[in-house]
Every structure is written in C-alpha cells, then in structure tokens.
C-alpha cells in the first residue's frame, strides 16, 4: 500500500467512524470490507477507453508506416539508377534514347514523359467541357430524377474496371482510328479517348461539389438584376467555382497520369518520341507494366524502370501539392 492509498484508507476509516445517520445501515461498510485498491485503481471505463484509443491509434500508425514505406522503397530503388549506375539525372529527364540494356547512355525517359503528359492533358482538356456541362445540368438545370439518373451513370462509369476499358479500346476505338487515320490505330489518340471516359466521372463529381458550394444568394442577386440563367452561370457561378473546378481537373489528371493497364493496351508500347497522335508511343505506366517482368532485379534496366516508378510517385505527390495549394488560396 503506497502513501496515497494509506491516506485514502484513513479518510474512509474516519468517515465510517463518524457516521451519524442512524437510520442508514452501515453493516456492510466496515473498515475491513472497503477495498482501497479498487477505489484507487482505474475504472473499467477508463481501461476500455485506453484500449479503444490505443487500438484505433495503432491502425493510424500502420497506415502512416505504409506510406513512408512506399516512398522509401520506391525512392531507394528509383535513385539507384543515378547513385549506383551513375546515370546523369538531366540525361534521364531530357534524352529520348531509351534502351537501358545497352548501357547508361541510353537511359532517357523524355519520350515517355512527353507522352504521359500529352495523354493526360488531352484527356483532361476533352473531359472538362463535358464534366462542366453535366455538373451544370445536375445543379442548375434539372433536379431530382434526372440528377439521380446522371449520378448513377457516373457511378457506373467509375465502376467499370480499367482493363475492360482497355479491352474496349482495343476492339472498338483502335480499329476505328485505324480506318479513319490509317496506320496501326494504336497511339496517343486512342489512349486519350479511353482516359477521357475514365477521368470524366472524377472531374464531374468534384465539379458538382464546386457548384453546390456556390452560395444561393449569389445566384438570386444575379437573377434579381435581370440576368438570364446563362449570364448567371457564366458570370457568377463559374467564376465563383473556378478554384474548385481547377482542383477537380487536377484530380482527374492525377488519375489519368497514373492509369496503367487501359493505356498500355491501346498506346502501342513503342518508346519513341511521339510525332503525331496516331503513332505508337509509350507512357511511364505502360512501360512499367509491360517491362518490369522482363528485367532482373538490381541490373541497370531494372533500376531504370524503378526510376520511372519514382517519377510517377513524384508526379502523384506534385498533383496532391497543387490541389492543396489551390485549396489554400481559396
């Protein structure tokens, strides 16, 4: 029994000795039956609380460890190209000679970087007007049934697995492009069309949120000034929602940039600097997917692929950062 518990015991003893209320039976409370350790120990509730909090905090720690591990592992392997194999980082970024098995002078990812950005930007450019139109339709023009219908349309588009989009591209889009433009049909155009459908729901749902966040009285004031619906939309709603629409587009671009299989199936997988929209090309993701299995761990060709993965990771972080930056300005 420590000091604290002794004190408590004394107080209890005193209280029992001094009790003066005659009609209350204190038989059960005699000094011996008072369990001081129980009074001073934690309650069941406190223990439960600690357990619960600890258990849930553990889950958070696991997630935090995961992200650190991903960045760490991919970082170490991606940097091996520059540290161990002494590839010049500027050469990697700006040369388009890609044949890592031929030596360190042929590790140039520029062609893939350009292609990746090209398909991403084109897909976002194509999808944005559609996304804004649908979002306007859902928030400004129609409500209830039509909105719910369009929402389920978008959910279905999201739900379709990316390989299914790739297969559709392979069997529908590529042949159509082949008949119209000649050539193989594989290339940036096919990839853009596939990515357009894949990023459309992402951009749309975030744009809907953007429009919903525009206060109603702004619209009402505009209408009170005699503006038509389109004038209100163009001068008030679109303007007020602009930062959030921009965020939506960046989210869409992040998705397009990281999409692997669907793109890999329709882009043609030739690591060449693209000179038009219908010539075979390769993106960072498509090269990773198709080549990772063909290289031996630790060799230059393998390290070079990990550098592509690191580049993807960094781009994903950059997109995140951009979203945050725009969000802060708001």
């Amino acid at each position: 029994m420590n000091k604290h518990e002794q004190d408590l015991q004394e107080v209890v003893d005193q209280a029992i000795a001094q009790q003066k209320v005659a009609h209350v039976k204190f038989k059960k409370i005699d000094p011996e039956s008072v369990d001081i350790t129980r009074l001073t120990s934690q309650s069941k509730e406190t223990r439960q609380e600690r357990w619960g909090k600890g258990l849930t905090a553990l889950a958070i720690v696991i997630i935090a460890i995961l992200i650190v591990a991903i960045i760490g592992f991919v970082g170490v392997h991606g940097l091996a190209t520059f540290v161990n194999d002494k590839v010049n980082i500027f050469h990697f970024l700006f040369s388009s000679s890609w044949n890592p098995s031929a030596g360190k002078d042929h590790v140039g990812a520029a062609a893939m970087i350009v292609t990746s950005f090209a398909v991403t930007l084109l897909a976002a450019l194509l999808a944005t007007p559609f996304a804004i139109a649908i979002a306007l339709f859902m928030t400004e023009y129609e409500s209830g049934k039509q909105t719910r219908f369009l929402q389920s349309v978008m959910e279905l588009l999201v739900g379709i697995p990316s390989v299914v989009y790739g297969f559709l591209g392979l069997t529908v889009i590529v042949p159509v492009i082949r008949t119209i433009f000649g050539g193989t049909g594989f290339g940036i155009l096919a990839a853009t069309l596939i990515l357009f459908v894949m990023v459309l729901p992402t951009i749309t749902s975030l744009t809907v949120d953007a429009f919903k966040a525009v206060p109603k009285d702004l619209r009402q004031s505009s209408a009170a000034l005699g503006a038509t619906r389109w004038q209100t939309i163009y001068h008030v709603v679109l303007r007020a929602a602009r930062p959030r629409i921009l965020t939506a587009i960046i989210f869409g671009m992040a998705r397009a940039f990281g999409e692997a299989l669907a793109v890999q199936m329709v882009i043609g997988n030739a690591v060449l600097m693209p000179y038009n929209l219908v010539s075979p090309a390769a993106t960072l993701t498509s090269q990773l997917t198709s080549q990772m299995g063909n290289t031996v761990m630790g060799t230059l060709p393998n390290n070079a692929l990990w550098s592509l993965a690191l580049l993807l990771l960094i781009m994903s972080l950059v997109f995140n950062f951009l979203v945050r930056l725009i969000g802060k300005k708001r």
Partner: protein
Amino acid sequence: MNSKKVDRIATGVIYLLVAIVILILVGILGNILIAGVPHLSWHFLTSTSSSFEAGGGIRDQLFNSLYLLVLTLLISLPIALGAAIYLAEYAQDTWVTRLIRTTIEILSSLPSIVVGLFGYLLFVVQFGLGFSIIAGALALTFFNLPILTSNIEQAIEGVPQTQREAGWALGLSNWKTIRGIVLPAALPGIITGVILSAGRVFGEAAALIYTAGQSGSTVDYSNWNMFSPTSFLNVMRPAETLAVHIWKVNTEGIIPDVNLVSAATSALLVIVVIIFNFGARFLGNWLYKRLTAAKVK
C-alpha cells in the same frame, strides 16, 4: 433579346453534351454486354482456362478473384475501421492529425501500378512470399485502405452528436459509446462503403500483375488442406484474377478466341460491379430502415 438567344444556345449545348455522355455510357455498356453475355455459359464459368487452345473458361480466375477479395477485406477492414474511428472520434485538430489526413489522401491518389510495384518489392522479393495470393491481398489492402478509411469516417461522422451525448449521459465510456451506439448507427454507411470498395478491388488488375502473379497453378477444389500446394485455399500459390486474365490474354494472347474470352469476362466483371453498386445502395437503405425506423429521403 440577344442575351436570351445566348441563354438558349448555352442550354442547348449543355443538353447536347449531357446527351453525348449518356450515349457514350449506353454504347460502352451495350458493347460490353452484347459482345459478352452470349458467351457467358455455365461451361465457360466452370471450366479451366486454356493457355493456347480455344474454348477455355475462367473457373480458377473467378474463384481467385473472390478469394482475393475476401482476404483483402479481412485484412483491410479492421485497420480501416480502427483508423476511421480514431480520425472521427478521437483525433484533435493538431498538426499530427492533419499530417495523417494528408498521408491518407496521398495514399489514395497513388497510381495503382506504383502500389503494385511496391507490393512486389516488399512482399514478393523482400519477404520472400513469391507471386502469391497473400502478396496480392496485401498489395490490394494498400490500394483499398485509404478509400475504405475515408468512407467509414464519413459514415461515422454522419451519426448525430446527440446520440453520443445520450451514451455519455448514461455513464458509458467514450469507447463503449462508439461501440454500442455510434458504430451500429453508422453501419448502413459503413456497409455501403465496404461494398463499393469491394467493387473496385474486384476489378483491379494493375496492383496484382506483379504481386499475385499472372499464372494460374493447377488447383484442386477437393483439397481443403490450406498448406498443400494444390489446395484451392492455399494463400501461397500464384493466382490470376479475372481482370488480370483479360489484360494477359489481350497483351500476350496466343489463344485464338481471345476476343470471346475477354468479352465474356469483361461482361462478367461489369455485371458484378453493377450488382455491387446497386447492392450497396439497396442494402444500405434497407439496413438504415431496419435500424432506425426512419424514412430515407
């Protein structure tokens, strides 16, 4: 007059763009279903796939997809649930919490191929698991965790504060209030979130190519010994899922009926995803009604 004309034109353009998108979806769904459904036969679902002949089925891929889904949910659900409870109920608005939220956002926006390659590095190579179902399930957990966590967190945050206060007023600990009051009330939302994430996991391929592997080993469905190499329950065997199967037969396909197989498999995947989507909403609404006796808007 002029501005009215512009208004009409704008309205027309917006309706036109919406119509185009609906047409695209109808085209996509129609294309997949019309090309695939006629080939979805019992024989196709229950026969093994063939690597070079026509007429192969997808029995093992179908089982692998389901098995992987179950394993992934078994691993990721407890972690996501814990993390979501912490974020929604315990976390104060400090820089640590904000950092964690940022971390989860970053994790959810990572390209799935990067997650897959990380899984390959860590589980397949580092831990020596080889191409295996368990490595695939772990990689999918990464992919699944952030989405699941934020879905569950939203569901928990949707529970009215008065319900928590009622629990505290009864003298329950915070933890008991969460377990006994908040979680049951959030259950419909949680289940909807789980099913929706299951739909994504079911169709995911990029994260699996280099973790669960692309080859199917021979599987014996009467062997219930989890440690036998031929058992269908063995988590150490390489396993190809439906989505990976579509990708593989199309990129290195040497089977003559590649379009048939992929069309039918695509149709199956899309049907399953549609069922998941509607199932999630239906089950969520139904549970909500059962648990709260309230009207759903």
